């Protein structure tokens, strides 16, 4: 009995070690950022959103892209708390900086890099990810291969910068070296019954893939300057669906 307890303790310890080797910090590791994602955070290893890693967001259309931008802006608000700046790299930018203010960021602290050539895009993303002084790097990339994503992964492993790859309407979705793959769609907002107008931005957040974690789907909304989890429809994706996508 005692041996069994020791064994399970040992396994837990080893698992933690493996996670930290893979770049996931444990909760006790310095001060952890509170993203306020609620139950969604349980999907990640150690129950904490992995910073210092590259996340992939897929948007099939413009409406989804706008939702993803909103969600990313909410995440950036937390990441940029310590007065660091953020770089937003894109080729055909439609971001309207005043619209980001709602998500708790000062839009003047975001540096936009608008490129003309796809060729320069990945180079710039890699250079930016290597820069430790940045809080986060958002890159609107259409296509990226496994090899290219490996380079980005290696860059963040050293610099601990959080990278978000926003892939809008990609031609093909293949495995790339990212800790997670997200898909965010807008869903109808809810208001008090009988009230006119449009409510808080509300999204269906799908975590299609997460390294060492559990994929799933949640509903979140952005209200009063923070994420709010909407428990009603939350469910873990059936395992068959996960297999298919990841």
């Amino acid at each position, binding site marked *: 009995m005692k041996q069994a307890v020791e064994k399970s303790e040992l396994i837990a310890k080893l698992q933690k070690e493996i996670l930290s080797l893979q770049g996931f910090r444990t909760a006790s590791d310095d001060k952890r950022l509170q993203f306020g994602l609620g139950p969604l955070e349980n999907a990640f290893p150690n129950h904490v959103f992995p910073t210092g890693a590259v996340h992939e967001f897929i948007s099939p259309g*413009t*409406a989804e*892209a*706008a*939702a993803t*931008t*909103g*969600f990313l*802006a909410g995440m950036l608000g937390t990441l940029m708390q310590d007065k660091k*700046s953020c*770089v937003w790299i894109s080729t055909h930018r*439609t*971001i*309207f*900086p*005043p*619209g*980001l*203010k*709602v*998500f708790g960021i*000062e*839009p*003047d602290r*975001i*540096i*936009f*890099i*608008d*490129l*003309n*050539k796809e060729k*320069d895009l990945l*180079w*710039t993303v890699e*250079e*930016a990810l*290597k*820069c*430790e*002084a*940045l809080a986060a790097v958002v890159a609107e990339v259409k296509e990226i291969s496994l090899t290219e994503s490996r380079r980005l992964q290696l860059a963040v492993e050293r610099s601990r910068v959080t990278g978000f790859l926003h892939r809008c309407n990609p031609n093909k979705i293949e495995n790339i070296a990212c800790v997670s793959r997200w898909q965010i*769609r*807008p*869903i*109808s*907002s809810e*208001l008090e019954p009988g009230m*006119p*107008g*449009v*409510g808080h*931005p*509300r*999204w269906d957040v799908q975590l299609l893939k997460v390294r060492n974690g559990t994929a799933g789907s949640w509903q979140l909304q*952005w209200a009063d300057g923070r994420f709010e989890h909407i428990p009603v429809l939350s469910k873990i994706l059936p395992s068959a669906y996960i297999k298919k996508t990841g």
Partner: protein
Amino acid sequence: MERRFAYIWFCHLTTDQLAIRKPELKGIPFVLAAPERGRMVIRAVSPAANAAGIVVGMVLADARALMPDLKMFDQQPGKEERLLRALAAWFLRYTPVAAIDLPDGLILDITGCAHLWGGEQNYLEDILARLSAAGYHLRAAITDTVGMSWAVARYGTGRVIIERGAQREILKAMPPAGLRLAPEILDRLSKLGFYRIGSFIDMPRAVLRRRFGVSIAERLDQALGLVTETITPVQPVVPFDERLPCLEPIRTANGIQIAIRNLLEQICLRLLRENKGLRKSVLTYYRVDGVVQKIEIGTNQAVRNMEHLFKLFELKISTIRPGLGIELFVLEAPIVEALSRQQETLWTAAHQEDTAVANLLDRVAGRVGAGAVHRYLPDEHHWPERSLKQAASLDQQPDIPWPEDQPRPVSLLPKPEPIQVTSPVPDYPPMLFIYKGKVHKIRRADGPERIEQEWWIDNGLQRDYYCVEDESGARYWVFRSGHYDSGATQWYLHGFFA
């Protein structure tokens, strides 16, 4: 170091230039003349006129007697100098040190240049071929001294490239005119029967000086390379270097840091003045015991930011062995490149403790162009397209807070796209709209927010913005342009909410 000079003599500089400008004059005898004491005196002759016996200094009337159909053009004063300066600037491709020699020659210091063309022969041939093709008549020579090159180019009969040591023999065979002497001295020499330089080159200098003045001895020494002759290049070459001699030998890291800072400050100031940035910098330090050592740094692109350069040097300070002390620091920038002032603003970001971001942006700007980096500040306009302005630098703070009172989309189309709508009641949001062939049924709507056109900027129609949500949950920002009752209203989609 063995120095070599080339001299280019343009035999018919001004007339050649005129013939190049007016091709119809090519091969035709013509002269340039200027009035002098009430008559026209010829100042320059074309090769064809020269062949007919017309020379510089003739009176135009005499020349017309020789050749009645001689064409004449006015000579413009200062024309030669302007031409020579332009040619000297062109010659910078051959050597960094090119000087003009009025009225019709160029002096080039070609030390260490000719091997790039594969030897002096090829070098000279290249020059001659290019300028002859352009239409100039010229003679050139390469020797050890300016004076010798001058003489060989004008009076040489054989070889034009004189190797080291042979110039005395060549000079002996030349007429005294090859020494660049004043006409009265030449007259006296010829009266005394000195038709060749060889007949007086071995005379004692004191004798020559007494009989013919100081200049003849000086010119001889210059031609033989016994005294150096300085030339004034059209483009002065000033190396980027700064020196810091120390009163007391410096031995501490702290002292070295102060020295480097001092030197960097001076060099950066000069770089700023000349709109340049350095790519490579070498710090040479002279120790009291006579040892000279150097450390060097390189940058990815032109930089003139003192702090950044100091950081690069700081990493190497530990490798300096001051020994008994350092008495002299010399900082050089052997490689400098043009650097616009624009980039400077990125560096002086005051609130940015971390220059890493500026460094990153510098590299990005260096690769894809400075126009790629944007930062926005709110502007005092309600019109969405005008509600933000570009920040001039990284540290510019917003003058007004970002407006939060009205909803703004996260994504804005660069140009509003027209949509077809069905709206039941005037001044009500539409029931549905068709965008890119897809029907969106509207479930919820907010608005309108009327934004008037600023009449002092543009006189268009005002916009009534609605925030709408379709049945799939996507949120859009649509507007109606103009009043409903004016008849010609058009609806547009302008943005997407999160």
